């Protein structure tokens, strides 16, 4: 399998990237390439030109800043998985993406810009209340993760913009990620990220998102509402997890690995798993 022909440009800085993007309309941006190169090889994309942003230093690294940690868009999944100052729900999700070799090349920014509905990180960032920072020739702007993922492979990114970093709050309580793997590709058939706070024995804050089920990562508002003010135990978690069907509505997708009905029926199990683990980490 081979990609179609394309021209290749390497940007060594953000400003160079923007001018290249302006110069080559229709060009695709490549970082780790672990979403784009497979698409090219399958000829699902034929962009004519690639702009390699993989070496732009401004987009790399993890920096803690008070109650939030900033992850540069070019940070690989392997680095996120090994990071100490990030919510556990995020590090464990990053550690379950693909396999070690894929995690060594795939980048966080590339992953969320691709917005695969079965991808893990969109779900986690949505649940953690992360902020996606975008940069373009006109400057920076920020979008809440739950507003960033807008549809099947669709995001709030506009023409000429790049994901520059993700700000992840680190004071949101205990977090966890649970996932039913697609046995072959290891994407999520169902993924659930949860973050909870427990005060005075009851849940004082809860944020839950699911992926793999609908066109994009979805916030589970009904599940969250069912948790607030409750002690977190097997019964309350099971009852709250059952609310996921309300959050999902009729939009659950099916494919050759799992029908919509199957996904819908097992979703509460993974919601409960994520909540149970998050609660145990909530201190």
């Amino acid at each position, binding site marked *: 399998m*081979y990609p179609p022909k394309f021209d290749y440009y390497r940007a060594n800085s953000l400003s160079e990237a923007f001018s290249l993007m302006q110069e080559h309309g229709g060009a695709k941006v490549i970082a780790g390439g672990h979403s784009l190169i497979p698409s090219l090889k399958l000829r699902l994309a034929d962009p004519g030109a690639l702009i390699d942003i993989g070496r732009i230093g401004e987009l790399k690294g993890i920096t803690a800043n008070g109650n939030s940690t900033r992850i540069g868009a070019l940070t690989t999944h392997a680095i996120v998985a090994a990071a100490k100052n990030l919510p556990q729900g995020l590090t464990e999700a990053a550690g379950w993406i693909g396999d070690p070799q894929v995690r060594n090349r795939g980048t966080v920014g590339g992953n969320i810009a691709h917005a695969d509905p079965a991808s893990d990180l969109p779900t986690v960032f949505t649940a953690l209340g992360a902020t996606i920072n975008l940069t373009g020739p006109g400057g920076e702007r920020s979008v809440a993760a739950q507003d960033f993922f807008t549809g099947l492979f669709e995001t709030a990114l506009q023409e000429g913009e790049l994901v520059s970093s993700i700000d992840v709050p680190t004071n949101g309580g205990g977090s966890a990620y649970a996932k039913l793997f697609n046995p*072959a*590709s290891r994407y999520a058939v169902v993924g659930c990220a949860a973050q909870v706070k427990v005060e005075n024995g009851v849940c004082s804050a809860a944020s839950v998102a699911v992926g793999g089920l609908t066109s994009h990562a979805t916030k589970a508002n009904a599940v969250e509402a069912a948790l607030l003010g409750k002690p977190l135990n097997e019964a309350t978690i099971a009852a709250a997890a059952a609310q996921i069907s309300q959050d999902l509505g009729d939009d659950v997708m099916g494919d050759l690995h799992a029908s919509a009905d*199957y996904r819908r029926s*097992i979703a509460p199990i993974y919601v409960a798993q994520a909540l149970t683990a998050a609660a145990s980490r909530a201190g």
Partner: protein
Amino acid sequence: MPIQHIKVLRNGTDEEELKVVETTGLPTWDADTKFTVVGRPQSRLEGLEKVTGRARYSYDVRLSGQLYAAVLRSPYPHARIRHIDTTKAEQLPGVHAILSSANAPDDITWYEEKSKLFDKTLRFIGDEVAAVAAESEEFAQDALRLIEVAYEPLPFVIEVEAALQPDAPRVHDKGNRVDEPTIYERGNAAAGLREADVVIEQTYTTQTAVHNSLEPHGCTAFWEGDQLTLWESTQGIFETREQVAEKLGLPEHHVRVVKEHMGGGFGSKQVPWKQTVIAALLSKQSGHPVQLMLDREAENLAAGNRNATVQRVRLGAKRDGTLTAILADIQVVVGAYMVGGEASEVNGMYERLYRCPNVRTEQIGVYINAGPCVAFRAPGHVEAAFALEAAMDELARALQLDPLTLRNRNYSEIDQKKEKPLSMPNALQVCYERATAAFGWQTYQRPAPTGPKRRGIGIAAHEWGGSGQPPAYAWIKLNGDGTVDVVTGTQDIGTGARTGLAQVAAEVLGLPIEQISVHLGDTAKGPYSPTSAGSSTQASVGPAVFAAAVEAKRQLLEVAAKLLEEEPERLEIRDGVVMVEGEPENKLTVAEVTGRLAPHMIIGQGARGPNAKDKTIRTFGAQCVEVEVDVETGEITVLRVVAAHDCGRIINPTMVDSQVFGGITQGVGFALTEERIVDEKRGLVLNANLEEYKIPTVADIPQMTNVPVNLPDLAANPTGVKGIGEPPLVPTAPAIANAVFDAIGVRLRHAPLSRRQLLAALATQAESIDKSAPPHTQEGQS
């Protein structure tokens, strides 16, 4: 030792060989023989090449001026080519040759003459439409996109039941049945059912599975004048030579087939496919060497698969478990063509495994518009075991007997089809005993359920051939420095044949294995050996090497006897030294003997003799598994597998372990995840890749235990070896299915045992889940 060629006229039965070799007078390795090399875990002779990346596979061949070829394949499950125009592709720089129905020879046929090399009628997605040879694979792929084809889509059929309807679209003009049904009956099966106290009647289905050898099919073709050389990824260099010579109208000595290393061969490489001849023709047309490797998609679409089956099984038994009838109605879904005329023999295990006077099997092959099936590791037996061994488990439950007890109650010590004794009548019993003892079958205590997780155990057995047979030939050359070249026209398909054969030669010659080289995989350099299929390489070629080594040793000792002024009968060779019995001082090294002889040399020729005629030689095995089932998600986890397989004498225990572990692993894949999925509406294969077709990874596989069963079978050959390549895959899937039933009380009769199927079955039998301990009927357990 006299070697005599005897011609025996073929009389139409499979009992007669056209040519046999008289091998009487050969010594044998019996139970009392002491070994120094055989039976030890010798590391592989070719291991160094493989761990350093130096091992050369077909697609590693790089010749001066070499071109790369790619194949345009049918995008339709059934279509006719109205028009094909390759003009634009021809004009692409770097393109040297294009073949299609427009210019390919019209007289080369394939698939039992049902298709031309490039046929205008396409019968499955992936059928060959055109091929291009260009200066790089990228150019070749680009050129394919410039070929313009006008297709006329035709009605197609994917589902076996639909294919058997009278008004179904016809895959071939004569319809969708491959042939008349194959019917076998002994006794009176209907009467046997009437006699029964308990009857089990169930229908089981097995899926289309894809071999997915890591190295796809492919070859590099190169002409020097009228001499064609093919570096082919094949299980049979001589089979390939014969077929390619026939297709191209060449004398056999003008075709040379080479295979140094091969990235896996599980049956689909036992025959040459169209691409081999296409590569040869592209090479001829372009005047350059041409390499044509399939990519993963083509490999999964058009290079063979394990046929799906539908098996309606009826078992009848008396209260005490004695079988009164075995009946199986079998549909084998062969795809669009028969490859080499062989559909897998699903019926055989029903006829052989259990003692039963009344047996009837009926098998038909059915064409559909999908890629053709071909032998896949223990063809027929994997499919049959999934049904028969589950049905036996169902029968055991119905009779409230331990599944092992039921099996032992119906143990067959003879070949009931041929009414001959088995060469090793208790081999399966030994397998049962060793597997269940190591597993702890009798004493198993089911752990209490934890949350949604339930545990259970299952057992299944199998029988298979693997005796090996003639013809196979080998030469042993003793060099002046005492080293040895073993030369034979077999091939090492990854099993370690080089090592196993070297161990045989080293043992006979009394030499350290470091002094042995094995040369194989080249039709121009070694004498005929058969295709590596049917688990027969060590059992077919090993005895030829053995005979050649015995002959070389005889000559060596004759020379040594003269030098030592002794009688040859008093000499023996140990660790490279020829010594006189009882006179430790009177000795010469082998190198001293051959050195005195050089440059004259000793050449031993050996041939594989016939198997014993008065006995039936089979292999057997049993596996026990423990699984954990998550009743919420439907996930099945295999926790442990214990296997015991009869393969005659064990030459290299680690290599046998390797075969067993590899077989079990493919069995886990077959049981749980592997399935070619076709969209019936469009005929599209949805998972012709490894991204969506799931083969087991290291994380899916538990610790496995192989309990050695070392039962030399001298009816097979003087080395006592039988095959182990295929059998270990056979019992795994039914053992898993039986364990799942044991865990949750729900029977899954369709392979693979998907999460969806399990949850759906649980939902319809919801009452079964409520029982905290499902019925596990073990005799003698309090």
